[in-house]
């Protein structure tokens, strides 16, 4: 029998590489968590399991970044926000859109993934992001 996948950040991004957005759910109180962790932030239980999330979310808040750190400079101006998944858990994300002026709190967004980066140094995580629904 294979061991269940550990509730780690590395594992979260491994799942992103498989185009899956996963949260950790507390078996006892059903609380969903991103970032994943071993001890439930609500009830302190250490019985947690991975739960796959859907692709739909709504925009809770956002900003348009004009002054960015070197790694993101080529993308400016770009939008980042907090998205609430239909399952209720929230996640920070880049919001890809060609029309920054149409961003609105409460708008529906759709999840997508970028291919794994080629960087040679840690971390080598693939990225998730959100975009406007088609």
């Amino acid at each position: 029998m294979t061991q269940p996948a550990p509730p780690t950040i590395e594992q979260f991004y491994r799942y992103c590489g498989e185009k899956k957005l996963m949260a950790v759910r507390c078996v006892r109180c059903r609380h969903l968590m991103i970032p994943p962790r071993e001890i439930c932030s609500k009830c302190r239980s250490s019985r947690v399991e991975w739960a796959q999330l859907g692709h739909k979310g709504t925009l809770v808040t956002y900003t348009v970044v004009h002054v960015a750190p070197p790694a993101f400079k080529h993308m400016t101006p770009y939008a980042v926000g907090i998205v609430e998944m239909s399952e209720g858990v929230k996640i920070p994300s880049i919001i890809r859109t060609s029309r920054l002026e149409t961003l609105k709190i409460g708008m529906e967004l759709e999840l997508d993934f970028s291919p794994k980066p080629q960087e040679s140094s840690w971390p080598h995580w693939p990225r998730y992001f959100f975009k406007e629904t088609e």
Partner: protein
Amino acid sequence: MRAKPLASIVSVGISKFGRREGVYARELFAEAALEAFQRVEKLDPGKDIKTAFIGQMSESYEHQSHNAPIAASWAGLLPAPAIRVENACASSGAALRCGIMAIKSGMFDIVLVGGVEKMTNLPTPEVTSILATAADYPFEQWNGMTFPGLFALMATSHIHEYGTTEEQMAQVAVKNHKNGALNPKAHMQREVTIDDVMKSRVVSWPLKIYDCSLITDGASCLILTKPKLAKKLTDNYVHIIGTGQAQDTFCLHERESLTTIKAAKAAAQEAYKMADLKPKDIDVAEVHDCFTIAEIIAYEDLGLCRPGQGGKFVESGTPSLTGSIPINTSGGLKSKGHPVGATGTAQIVELYLQLTGQADRRQVEDAEIGLAHNLGGSGATAVVHILRSS
């Protein structure tokens, strides 16, 4: 009944804040320490100060870690042990709590507490990256979040939920620059207009460059004693009568509300309770205006106005120097500057000057009770102190 003091402050020192070219962090700290030592002649610092707690956020600015022993020894403190305290922008607020605990434990009678940051050696994008390390790496930084970005997310929520305006945020900057223009130690000693702020370059919408605090070099320090000892050393001492510290989820997205900083509310409640005081008792306050929206949220979290009313509160003039609760009389992080590790104790320096009647052109008449509100990161740490004149 008046709350019993936890510790007393017998002296303070602050370096000139600004772009201090050619000066090392340790030298800035010595500048602040020297001022503190000169204020209290009856003290023999090398002999009497038995330990030090020094806040510093990052070793990356000067390629120098282990900086507390360096700073303390440059202040002439040998062999008294010095411990570095790091809680991002609340580093020296947290260092002050360590100092209070050291006094309260009975282990030490006289303690030096302070903070320092030398930030301007590096170009702004690198400084921004170093500051961003106080945000969560795998979820926030990895997703292109910056520090202004995190506070911008709160600003967007505040605008959406309460109708707060960019003009109201701009008024925080205008007010703090007006105060900073009267502070000879401030980084940017000049006034700005609403128009200057509104037309300034966007950093992370809705925050513009004039909504952001400054990248500054500076140091600050306090000399703490047990309350009984204070009047033997000086006539100019103040009492610390309340301290509170709390934390919230490290990532912003895990919080229930983005229009309040829960940790600041909890820290304030703890400090008010200890001081046996209420928000209406505060005469003067220094709050953590790393971004203008942070000051608006601070008014609400400290109970100085109702939730959502922070924009209207600044508009009303209540927190102006001539208002009924002057806030950030020093100029705040916005105009005095924000040398990250030095900020927490720099706030206390201003309160000390106010409560001992030494604030010169910024003096708030009859100020007896002062409050300091110091945030770390996007509010994962919050530290609140309440001081009373002697």
